[in-house]
């Protein structure tokens, strides 16, 4: 399988990922609001970072390897 690294998410997807990623980082490593368990905090930190990064680049590698995407041509041309 050859990865193309092309944008594969729309603005809604990016927004949701940005909110989810920030929430995970705040509730996890920053405040330890949900739990102070180190493994849980690491998981939330990693997932939050990945979600934020994917939102910034509009690209999700899991979308690519599963053949999914939330982008359409009009979104792509707008970007």
């Amino acid at each position, binding site marked *: *399988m050859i990865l193309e690294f092309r944008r594969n998410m729309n603005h809604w997807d990016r927004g949701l990922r940005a909110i989810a990623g920030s929430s995970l980082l705040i509730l*996890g490593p920053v405040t330890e609001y*949900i*739990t*102070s*368990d180190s*493994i*849980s905090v690491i*998981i*939330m930190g990693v*997932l939050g970072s990945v979600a934020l990064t994917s939102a910034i680049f509009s690209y999700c590698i*899991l979308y690519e*390897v*599963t*053949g*999914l995407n939330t982008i359409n041509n009009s979104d792509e041309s707008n970007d």
Partner: protein
Amino acid sequence: MVDATIFDKRPNFMGIFLVTSLIGIMLISLAVYNASRELEAIHEVDNMYRVIHSVLGEEKIEQILRANHAPLQIDVGLNPYRFLILSDKHIEALQTEAKEDVRRLESIDLEDTRVNERGGYFEADNNTYTWAAFTADNSTNQLLVVHTFSSEGVSAIAYVYKKRMIIPVLFYVWLMIWVSLIFNHLLKKLKTQQKLMKHLALHDSLTSLANRSLMEDRLLKLIQVSHRENKKFAFSIIDIDGFKAINDNHGHAYGDELLRQVAKRLKSIMRESDTAARLGGDEFTIMLNNIDEKAWHAAFMRAHTVLIEPYKLFDTTVTVSVSIGVAIYSVHGDDADTLFRHADEAMYVAKAASGGIHLFEELEIEK
């Protein structure tokens, strides 16, 4: 004409992964529950040792072991501590409350239940009992303290789950969903490729009609079915006259386009149950099954009429003649080779008469 295959089934790993994940999570939860209870019991052993040691002290323990009498009652929580003397030969209760413990301790190997140097825990009579052993320098006996263990209960376990397990479990389920989606996607791609390869192996790449291999396979199956049901079918070989001239005069692109259009016209007049195939070059074959004489005669007439109509090839229009040779199962042969040979001979007779299907009729009339 369409092969229904297992490849049409939609792959789905989601259910398998979620069910196995659920089973895994239940087993891990159970293990965590048991581990939490065990840790609680171990904590209780350490706590009991510390309390007894601080309340009685070394001297008092020595006195008890020397005099074999119980200390004052020490009650922590709901369950009081019970005192016993453990010697090489037997266990002796120092209090009446501890007599039941003698019975319980005699039925187990105490050392097997030890969890650390201070003591251990064992289960008996549907209860868990923790114990701690104390020694003195001038005695071989040990002071054994037994306590009925009472777990903190569901709240403590729920706390452990909430603190340690919720996030890893959610992460694990999330991961499993993605893994199943990846597997679904890969399997779908694999099946699409397999389907394509199978199609390429059994179909002509230029016209998408069945190729010779598939035609032979279907002819054999049709013979078996017709033999079993005592039915007839028509097998024909079609040759496009003048194909070579088109190739030579206009180029191979025109010849290929002509073959594609011939295949398209053949498909348009075929039923789903019939088979059209390209044998190679400009030769085609069609098999009309389960059909009476009038019907197949009309079908071949229609095929001939359709095939001799002008063809628009890019920037030019060409007209070709068509020779159709027909053999009927089981009148002209009851095996594939004979049928094929007779149809071929009939086609050459038609070709010698400059094409047409009349030759087929004449051939039949002659017979």
